[in-house]
């Protein structure tokens, strides 16, 4: 990803070569200790990960409703799902949400990182603290905060619009405007984390590039466009993929912001799974929808692994 994160692994690799001779001896001798060190992890993995994973896959092939005996129905959940307009609507809305939330969040985080790494800016320490506070705010509270800002009859934004002579904007009763507020809220809440990644990447760009460009008369925009952006490309990919994963799983913030409303127009996919599985108690059907989400998330995660080529991690 960036030279800084690569250095421990590369030094570890040389340590590994030295240690290989030792390790061959160690293989048989220390078997109990590593087993005990990892026993808790193995148990928790089995109980809360492997077991639910297998259950979910098998429920998706049954008509289980949370009680009684599940009956095997083959792939009919999946065929029903692909004909279910509500499912398509949720999935489509999730993609629309991700398509807007990811670029907006990316630009905001990058702008913050650039502003914090510019040498001439004053007051970077307090600004850094301010930028980071939204990371502490839970998704629920973030939703509440933006709902309060964009309230239709009492919100600050509509108040300003009216002061400027405009009409109150229906932030809550118009589905697209409501999604727009959700995009702003998610960019606001997620920016701090991505900003950290960008700061690490930007501070790894050699200063001499900028100095050379400055001598050649490059303006600050040109330096950003032709030095910073290409140098942080790997981090950009990472941020985009991580934010896409996050956007596909969005649930809590929207719950507090508009509850998936107006109506069910902004119901994203996780909320659809939750309502189908828990409120309508169609466990089998919801599990099938989960599997579709899983495939989407896995595709994104595999793309991430491929691009960032972090195979040396394992």
């Amino acid at each position: 990803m960036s030279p800084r994160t690569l250095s421990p692994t590369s030094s570890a690799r040389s340590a590994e070569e030295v240690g290989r001779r030792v390790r061959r001896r160690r293989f048989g001798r220390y078997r109990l200790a590593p087993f005990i060190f990892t026993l808790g992890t193995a148990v928790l993995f089995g109980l809360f990960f492997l077991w639910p994973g297998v259950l979910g896959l098998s429920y998706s092939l049954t008509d289980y409703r949370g009680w009684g005996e599940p009956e095997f129905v083959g792939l009919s959940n999946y065929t029903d799902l692909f004909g279910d307009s509500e499912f398509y609507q949720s999935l489509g809305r999730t993609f629309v949400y991700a398509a807007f939330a990811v670029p907006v969040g990316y630009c905001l985080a990058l702008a913050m990182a650039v502003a914090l790494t510019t040498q001439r800016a004053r007051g970077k320490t307090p600004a850094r603290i301010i930028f980071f506070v939204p990371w502490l705010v839970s998704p629920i509270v973030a939703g509440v905060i933006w709902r309060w800002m964009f309230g239709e009859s009492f919100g600050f934004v509509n108040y300003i619009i009216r002061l400027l002579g405009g009409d109150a904007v229906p932030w809550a009763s118009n589905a697209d405007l409501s999604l727009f507020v959700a995009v702003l809220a998610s960019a606001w809440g997620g920016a701090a984390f991505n900003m950290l990644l960008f700061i690490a990447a930007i501070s790894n760009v050699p200063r001499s590039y900028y100095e050379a460009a400055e001598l050649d008369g490059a303006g600050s925009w040109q330096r950003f466009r032709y030095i910073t952006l290409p140098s942080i490309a790997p981090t950009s990919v990472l941020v985009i993929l991580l934010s896409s994963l996050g956007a596909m799983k969005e649930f809590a913030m929207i719950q507090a912001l508009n509850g998936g409303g107006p109506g069910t127009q902004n119901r994203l996919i996780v909320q659809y799974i939750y309502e189908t599985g828990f409120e309508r108690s169609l466990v089998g059907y919801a599990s099938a929808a989960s599997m579709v989400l899983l495939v989407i998330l896995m595709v994104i995660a595999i793309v991430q692994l491929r691009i960032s080529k972090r195979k040396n991690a394992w």
Partner: protein
Amino acid sequence: MVTTDAPTAPAKKRKTGNRLRRSHEIRRSILPTTLLWVLAVLMAFPLLWFLLSSFKPGGELFSYPLSFLPREWTLSGYEDAFERVEFMRYLTNTFVVASVATILTVFLCASTGYALAKYKNPWLSVLGLCVLSMTMLPGEVILNPLFIVVRDLGMYNSLLGVIMPSILTPTGVFMFRQFFLTVPDELIDAARIDGASEYGIFLRIMVPLARPIMLTLAIVSFQWRWNDYILPLIILGDPDQYTLQIALRSLVGAQNINWSVLLSASVLSMIPLVALYLVFQKYVTSSNINAGLKD
């Protein structure tokens, strides 16, 4: 800077050059500083507006014209939050969940990360792959089966049911594994020659070495668990067991939102994390955080 490039220049000339350069510097710092502070104001404003609104009396919240500062400062919203909502109970529940889960997470991830970094056998290779697979299979896709597993284990509606599934995080394991890979093997070998047991090496040498990582993971993990929504939502059905996030959600999901209580309860729910952040700021924003830190 000035003295090195013009060591023989007359003193007066040097001085004016210095002043010129300084005013030039100031002019060039205007744009970046403005950008920085415009962003800071944009980021801070929603929170500040929210915070100040929580000190307004109920009537002032909706009466036009709105004012930035409360015309009349009041704590009545906060009093209501403690009286009408069982705020202390939710706070205690959340605190129990977050702190117990965090302590267990740190120790489990440390020992697992250590074993994965410093030992090699088939069992560990399989376990490493299992932990890696967790990053691709987030909790959101196994909501229903996870609920059924927790119910069958008899932990439905108990805080234990919220704590147990959230202890193991691949991010934490990776963080420790990466750290322990950088600790030289010679250290372990020397301790072995001195007769230390494997557990003694881990507890007396490795744990103290990893203290900064432990603190970082502890803060991050506490934040995750404090702000968790989806797991408590499916596990906790009884309002007595609610965590803060679930309680806030039930306030905001009500037919008629009591904004006065909601605003102050939300502000109160953030105080512990903000305090923690201000104390341990450098551990959170340091370079220890890397790609995996999103759970």
